[in-house]
């Protein structure tokens, strides 16, 4: 029964690697084979669409180059994401804390997402220069939104009876927030964080289009007009791997931080599996 499967998640994924990842691996291999076959049969030029074998070769040959740039991007991602998490949680808390603040802040939060960053990137460059800062800001700008929206919904999902209980125990607003609303919001927050983490990677790439001298985004922008398409794809592979690993990492942290959310489901699942 689908819904009764243990929600083993990342931890289970890692533990049960050998078996459970088989389907995924098979699909990936099949797709790669198809791709390789397509490129070979139709003789697609590598400047247009390099074949998996060519990309793999590039990954190996340019390993040093790629990892140097990947490291730069990773730092931007992590710092920007950290900033997004901190500011996102703070903003969401303010929004959930008071209706007035919600009305005052939420429109700006939404508006911030509809501003095409590429349009203001040059302004960022002028205002804050061309170091780590503008990239981190672009990452944070992209990543904080899913965090805020999910966290606000999560904070509002707190059981009102539990809030009543706290009030009868003499809890003040802060207590209620810290001990009921915040814990209730965590499952939602983690949903948002998974999205945010993935978006951070693309955010760093966009950030690097302006004012950078290193990073995978920079490498791509530079390689493209030289028609080193296989290098562009190699960079994409590294970016994807980074994104997936960071996503899985958030899943892992989720299991550690809110074990009750998972065990609640798992226990029942074990019970039902018979």
């Amino acid at each position, binding site marked *: 029964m689908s819904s009764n499967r243990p929600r083993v998640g990342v931890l289970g994924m890692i533990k049960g690697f050998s078996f459970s990842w088989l389907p995924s691996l098979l699909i990936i291999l099949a797709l790669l084979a198809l791709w390789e076959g397509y490129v070979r049969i139709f003789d697609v*030029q*590598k*400047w*247009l669409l390099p074949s998996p074998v060519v990309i793999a070769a590039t990954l190996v040959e340019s390993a040093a180059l790629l990892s140097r740039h990947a490291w730069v991007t990773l730092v931007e991602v992590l710092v920007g994401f950290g900033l997004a998490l901190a500011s996102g949680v703070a903003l969401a808390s303010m929004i959930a804390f008071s209706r007035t603040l919600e009305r005052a802040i939420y429109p700006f939060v939404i508006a911030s997402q509809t501003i095409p960053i590429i349009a203001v*990137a*040059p*302004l960022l*460059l*002028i205002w804050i*220069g*061309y170091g780590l800062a503008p990239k981190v800001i672009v990452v944070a700008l992209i990543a904080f939104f899913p965090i805020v929206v999910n966290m606000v919904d999560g904070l509002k999902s707190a059981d009102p009876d539990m809030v009543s209980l706290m009030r009868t125990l003499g809890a003040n607003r802060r207590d209620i927030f810290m001990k009921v609303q915040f814990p209730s919001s965590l499952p939602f927050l983690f949903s948002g964080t998974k999205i945010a983490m993935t978006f951070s990677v693309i955010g760093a790439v966009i950030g690097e*289009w*302006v*004012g*950078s*001298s290193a990073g995978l985004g*920079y490498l791509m*922008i*530079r390689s*493209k*007009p*030289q*028609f*080193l*398409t296989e290098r562009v794809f190699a960079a994409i592979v590294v970016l994807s791997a980074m994104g997936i690993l960071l996503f899985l990492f958030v899943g892992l942290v989720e299991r550690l931080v809110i074990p009750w959310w998972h065990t609640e489901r798992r226990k029942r699942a074990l019970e039902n599996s018979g």
Partner: protein
Amino acid sequence: ESDQVSVKLALDWYPNSNHLGLFIAEEKGYFAEENLVVNMYTPVDPSTVLQTVGAGSDDFGISYQPELLMARAQGVPVVSIAGMVQHPLNSVVALASSGITRPADLKGKKVGYAGLPTGESLLDTMLKYDGLVGLGDVELVNVGFDLAPVLISGTVDAVVGAYWTHETILLENAGYPVVVLRLEEWGVPDYYELVMVASEDKLAQDPQVVERFLRAVRRGYADALADPQAGVDVLLRSAQGEEVDVAIERPGADLLKPVWKTSKADFGEQDSSRWQSFADWMHDNGLLAEEMDASKAFTSQFEDSK
């Protein structure tokens, strides 16, 4: 009428005075007279033009000579069929107030560029030509493609990659007189900034269409040469005219007129020694990994057919 052919043309950038001849040919029906229906569009990333033309999804495209050579080095089968301008438009630009008048003045200064290797090499050559060691003498800053604002704001002291027929006008209009250092005057081999490209396949299979297309284009630019401002009027009347900035395109057209056609060359003409020396320069500067026979990168086969 069965002869009518529909072709796709990818522009290098949004419609501007560089494209006047194309819009004239469209409006005056020169394309139609050749039984051609031309669909023009602008891909935002100009480097995609060579790929889409090379792959055959576009029939013609406007690109840049350095890019074309790099593309060919990677096996993209694209060929220049006409030099759209006879000289580089790319240049080094600084504010007049900066006191910079020659490359040597850039020593110790910040120079903004689009983050592409070509820009680095162009600057390097100019610096060396004027007696400096090279790139090590300046601080290069990747500022993306918005070169003018960073210059005015003082983020950088000069930029490389700005067109002396576009950004300079923009800056002057905004009240900032500028100094232009033309590439070909400071040691960079003269080259054709913009080139009309087609794929090798296209040239082999459909030379008549290419010929008809170029004939119409040449007629368009002949009109533009005769009266550039009338050409701007045509551009303004076009579908995208509303977004065109007259204050830039009017002076731009006047600046372009002398490079569409020079005393030495007609519109579109290409010279093989200029192609080769620029290719050699690119190889010397590491932009091409191997030496290249530039004669395959362009064709003059359509020039006589007037």
